[in-house]
């Protein structure tokens, strides 16, 4: 205990140094000058409490570690259960249930919840797309939102200038984002992991700055409004049909209800997510997908086996970008309005957090994490101020305690019998 006294004292002093000035004093503008206001005694008490806590924690850390080892471990899931859960038939059944639940759910819910679920699905799509790049191919992409923006703006601009419909726009947005992914990936994918992270971050920022400043084309920071909503085989979801169109409620002879459109958007998002899942799962079983994972595990081994790392990375990057483009197009159609504000770095960080929280490479994990990350701020409205603070903290703690994520991906592996 005495051995720990010095480090404990030091850490307490560090805590005071960290928070004393920054939390204890608040600087504010007063006319042209500056004014200082000391925070109340409650803040001072909090700082003192934090320092005391850190001091005691470090002082007794040996005892605490000993205590920690005495705590019985959580009961493991019985082996029979994991074998059962691992069976392909059971897994398929589970996915069927999940999809069925997602299909039935909107009929038993209200408008705002369906809207929220659509948002969740957009994030699921983005998470699954980024999962290819980060989780499967092991390339840290911090500018993913750039491709999302490219997709959204492609559809918005095509609709504004050429009156293109949603479905054409969707294809165009995907293709455009893929093109951007390819063009960006080409030069930067030779770089090592952390360089890649920063360059992609820079790329995301460049796209946002360009969108902000090309006022003639993109309307700058004011954004683009009245983006047409998607339609179902030429049927519109509005009260009155525009020229030469028919509305959904007229065609089916039911009464107009604005919830139809919300539900349609939900099903559309669900369809896109299922499509994404399907495509990714097929790709994973193809040589391409195997190469992604192999590359993540060991680049040198891949190279010696005749896999071209640049080509493999490039197609991971391009395919990931394509899904971001789809998501962006859907986002633009759902919002009806987009501006560069929606595509800041923090959005990239949130998508990355979804992938990391879910467990890099795990698709079920990504879905779960997308639900958590989108619903948490809705549930914890009163903590809205602290949302980003907690979000940052969560990312750090998650990396320290459970870097493999909530539902870590099961790697295909084989046990050698002895």
């Amino acid at each position, binding site marked *: 205990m005495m051995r720990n006294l010095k480090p404990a004292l030091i850490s307490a002093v560090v805590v005071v*140094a960290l928070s004393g000035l*920054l939390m204890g*004093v608040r600087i504010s503008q007063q006319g042209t000058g500056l004014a200082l206001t000391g925070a109340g005694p409650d803040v001072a008490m909090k700082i003192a409490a934090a320092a005391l806590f850190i001091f005691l924690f470090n002082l007794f850390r040996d005892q605490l570690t000993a205590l920690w080892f005495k705590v019985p471990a959580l009961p493991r899931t019985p082996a029979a259960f994991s074998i059962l859960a691992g069976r392909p038939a059971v897994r398929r059944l589970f996915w069927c249930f999940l999809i069925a639940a997602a299909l039935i759910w909107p009929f038993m819910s209200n408008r705002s919840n369906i809207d929220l679920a659509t948002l969740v699905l957009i994030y699921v799509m983005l998470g699954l797309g980024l999962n290819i790049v*980060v989780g499967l191919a092991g390339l840290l992409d911090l500018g993913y939102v750039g491709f999302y923006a490219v997709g959204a703006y492609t559809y918005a601009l095509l609709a504004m200038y050429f009156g293109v419909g949603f479905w054409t726009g969707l294809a165009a947005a995907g293709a455009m984002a893929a093109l951007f992914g390819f063009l960006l990936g080409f030069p930067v994918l030779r*770089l090592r992991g952390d360089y890649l992270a920063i360059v992609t971050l*820079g790329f995301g920022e460049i796209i946002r700055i360009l969108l902000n400043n090309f006022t003639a084309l993109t309307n700058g920071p004011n954004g683009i409004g009245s983006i047409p909503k998607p339609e179902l085989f030429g049927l519109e979801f509005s009260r009155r049909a525009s020229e030469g169109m028919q509305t959904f409620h007229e065609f089916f002879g039911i009464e107009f209800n604005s919830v139809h459109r919300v539900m349609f958007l939900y099903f559309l998002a669900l369809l896109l997510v299922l499509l994404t899942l399907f495509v990714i799962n097929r790709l994973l079983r193809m040589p391409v997908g195997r190469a992604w994972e192999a590359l993540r595990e060991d680049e040198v081994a891949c190279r010696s086996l005749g896999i071209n790392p640049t080509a493999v990375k490039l197609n991971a990057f391009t395919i990931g970008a394509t899904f971001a483009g789809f998501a962006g197009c859907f986002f633009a159609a759902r919002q009806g309005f987009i501006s560069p504000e929606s595509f800041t770095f923090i959005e990239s960080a949130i998508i990355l957090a979804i992938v990391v929280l879910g467990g890099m490479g795990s698709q079920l994990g990504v879905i779960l994490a997308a639900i958590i990350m989108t619903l948490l701020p809705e549930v914890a409205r009163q903590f809205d101020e602290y949302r*980003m603070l907690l979000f*940052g903290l969560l990312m750090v703690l998650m990396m*320290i305690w459970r870097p493999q994520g909530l539902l870590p991906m099961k790697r295909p592996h084989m046990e050698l019998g002895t």
Partner: protein
Amino acid sequence: MPDSFYYLLQQLLNGLTVGSTYALIAIGYTMVYGIIGMINFAHGEVYMIGSYIAFIVLAALALMGIESLPLLIIGALVVSMIVTSAYGYSIERVAYRPLRGGNRLIPLISAIGMSIFLQNLVRLAQGSRDIAMPNLVRGGLDIGPTTGFHATLSYMQIIIFVVTLISMTLLTLFITRSRMGRACRACAEDLKMTNLLGINTNGIIALTFVIGAALAAVAGVLLGMYYGVINPYIGFMAGLKAFTAAVLGGIGSIPGAVLGGLLLGVAEAMTSGYFSAEYKDVVAFSLLILILLFRPSGILGRPEVEKV
């Protein structure tokens, strides 16, 4: 001399001023990278915190009735260096040390989390609005004809050059002459071997974070006074720029970071002087991408270059 010459000179001076502060921040990236081979993503936020502490100290000293300029600047520098050192140390302890040795992406992600955390901590504690400070240092030296267009080297710019020069000299002396500096160089050479030879490598790694943070604080104080406006979001861009500068000069090399910082500053000033100020950030990133394309090791980044 024609007007255009003085215009060019003015852009050059502005660029070198900003560039020298980029260099100070870039040294933090390059030193950490030199030893543990990781990017300290939260470094930009340390710079931002340095600026905030400087503003608080300057306001406090002014309220106490201290008018003397050297005293104000030294007070701001000292306090903000101490506080940011504590931040540098804590970032290393919390976001890097427990994660060393694993997958390279993991510390990077935790550092991104740390960066978001610090940015929002300052936002909650100090508010998210811009805080502007009146100019403490006014006036400057005119270069060129007294009538008509001429370039101005403001006293603030001179202060920035002098303080940067002093900090870099001190750093160089520390690295090349002191025992701890030698240990730093040894760690950059071979971390495991240095550890085997009985040097506390954990301490040295923490020390590089602290030195980097202190230099970022110097940049924070100087740039805060130069621009006169701060908000909790300035760290993000500054961090990116400084990282670009570090890569430009060759990451891992201290002289490279300085050179990269100056080059980037000048490139930015030229863009805003001759093209448009809105695109100066785009120039920084385009420069980064081009450098990584054609010379990934940077200008001075050769394998045999001295790393710290």
